[in-house]
């Protein structure tokens, strides 16, 4: 293995280091007679694992420390993954979540001993109601996609109650992939509604298609192109007139928070990704939180338990006969709810409005800096994110994937690529409100430099990255012939 210096060296797997007899612990000598598991008739816990790493404490620490240095996170710099809203996670939220008065409680404690935790959840629900204009929320879903599934189950519960079983849910072709997946999982059939030339839902096509077999329309506003669906009220009216419901994927609520309310636009159900709009960590894939809000008519179907207030007391309302059931163990990801609560309180109404304004301003600033070098497939004004394509680079034989890889050489995490699907070679950039003008300028400069490289030395971009511990990976071989676990030298 080539060693390299400590910043560029490759790090093998832990099985590659260590040696026979090394270990990271030292136990005192046995001061009782040894017990023979086999003779006593008990099952041994497990057999020795062939090839199990034998490493000292220092080797383990250094191995994982080196790995951690190869990471890139929101604490390192701009993380422009479109649609993901990778905003900075304020440390005060982490501090509060680690306070033993919160993390020391147990979900099975009697209500009277956890009044503060219940009050927090009740108030968070009130905040979300106020922010979105909806009548009530369940805080339980652990992610946006689970919020979607819960919402669809609620739609079905309502229609069953009406004796009106409709099989279809309409989804725009720019939708997040989770939308059709949730539709399918909840037993509905997903049907695509095309976007018009402006990148918005084609209202006429929707009007022609909308009928009494359609349970709901599921949309995102602003949509995944970062464009506000200006006809949202007419869209909701078309769906409502035929007895359907409108579900809004709240992934992009951060473009509207404090400015406009989905509930006022005619939306019936909406999930809110707390790990996007409300700054809670995305973690290594979790835990997240995707509270689901609904209009008055759907309140009885919200999952149990919910916190209710009785005078000065907060309690769990367990008796909810029409609820779609329970969607999470205990009370949802409480630590995440707590962080979002802290974020909302520390911002206040004016601060939240500034979040949306900052997110929109930053995205449009990047758009203005980059629109000369990169093609913009949809002309409509951007809200919190902007979608470019590789059309201007294509003739040089450079594609989106190459530009994304090259960005790492210039010190930035790449944007979301090849999404939304309706844009060929999409690069979806969402800077969030967190970033300073200096960071945005540096990011734009890196992309401008890459555009120049494409013109002058396209091969350099096509073969990127060049400065990372590992270069261009063979993603095709990895997908066609995946190897899922380490195997020792043959």
């Amino acid at each position: 293995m080539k060693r390299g210096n400590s910043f560029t060296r490759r790090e093998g797997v832990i099985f590659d280091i260590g040696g026979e007899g090394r270990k990271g612990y030292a136990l005192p000598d046995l001061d009782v007679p040894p017990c023979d598991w086999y003779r006593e008739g008990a099952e041994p816990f497990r057999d020795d694992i062939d090839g199990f790493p034998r490493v000292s404490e220092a080797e383990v620490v250094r191995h994982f420390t080196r790995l951690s240095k190869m990471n890139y996170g929101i604490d390192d710099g701009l993380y422009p993954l479109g649609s993901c809203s990778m905003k900075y996670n304020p440390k005060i939220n982490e501090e509060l979540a680690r306070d033993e008065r919160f993390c020391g409680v147990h979900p099975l404690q009697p209500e009277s001993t956890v009044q503060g935790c219940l009050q927090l959840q009740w108030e968070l629900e009130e905040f979300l109601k106020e922010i979105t204009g909806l009548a009530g929320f369940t805080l339980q879903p652990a992610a946006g996609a689970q919020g979607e599934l819960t919402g669809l189950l609620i739609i079905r519960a309502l229609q069953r109650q009406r004796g009106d079983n409709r099989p279809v849910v309409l989804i725009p072709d720019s939708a997040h992939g989770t939308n059709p997946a949730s539709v399918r999982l909840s037993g509905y059939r997903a049907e695509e509604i095309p976007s018009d030339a402006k990148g918005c839902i084609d209202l006429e096509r929707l009007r022609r298609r909308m009928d009494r077999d359609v349970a709901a329309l599921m949309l995102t506003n602003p949509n995944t192109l970062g464009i506000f669906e200006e006809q949202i009220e007419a869209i909701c009216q078309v769906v409502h007139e035929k007895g359907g419901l409108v579900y809004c994927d709240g992934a992009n609520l951060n473009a509207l928070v404090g400015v406009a309310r989905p509930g006022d636009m005619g939306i019936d159900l909406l999930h809110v990704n707390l790990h996007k709009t409300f700054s809670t960590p995305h973690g290594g894939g979790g835990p997240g939180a995707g509270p689901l809000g609904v209009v008055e008519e759907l309140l009885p179907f919200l999952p149990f338990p919910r916190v209710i207030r009785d005078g000065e007391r907060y309690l769990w309302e367990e008796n909810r006969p029409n609820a779609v059931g329970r969607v999470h163990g205990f009370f949802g990801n409480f630590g995440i709810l707590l962080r979002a609560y802290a974020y909302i309180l520390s911002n206040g109404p004016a601060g939240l409005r500034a979040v949306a304004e900052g997110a929109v301003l930053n995205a449009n600033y990047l758009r203005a800096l980059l629109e000369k070098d990169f093609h913009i497939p949809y002309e409509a004004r951007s809200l919190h994110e902007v979608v470019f394509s590789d059309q201007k680079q294509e003739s040089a034989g450079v594609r989106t994937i190459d530009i994304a890889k090259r960005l790492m050489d210039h010190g930035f995490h790449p944007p979301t690529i090849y999404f939304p699907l309706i844009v060929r070679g999409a690069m979806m950039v969402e800077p969030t409100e967190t970033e300073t003008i200096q960071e945005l300028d540096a990011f734009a400069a890196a992309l401008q430099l890459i555009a120049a490289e494409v013109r002058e030395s396209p091969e350099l971009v096509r073969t990127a990255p060049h400065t990372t511990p590992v270069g261009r990976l063979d993603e095709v071989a990895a997908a066609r012939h995946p190897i899922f676990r380490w195997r020792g030298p043959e």
Partner: protein
Amino acid sequence: MNPESFRYSKEHEWINGEGELRTLGITDHAQAELGDIVFVELPKEGDHLKAMQPFGTVESVKAVSELFSPVAGEVVEVNRDLEEHPERINEDPYGKGWLLRIRVADARSIEPLMTEAEYRKYIQDSSR
């Protein structure tokens, strides 16, 4: 080049052959857009395909896409070679990368599909 004698759909599938037994696949344009294909999910022999309805999926390193049948018919044979070698679709979309042989329900249903010249124009017009 797209074969002259084939017919093409807006969903970028081709259909070829004479009589009621026809071969079906995805076009060169489709495979180029998808990029390296890593997995194909196809129906079983005996399954019935509906016109313009999805019958399977094709997965590339970029995305998973649905396959749409240009016409209605019954699946007679499935290209088993693709299970181990999905790259055949990239290498030879009109030959070894074929997907299905189907018994077409109504031979007239092929007529409205695009000719090679029409399909070429369609691709040009729809590239944004």
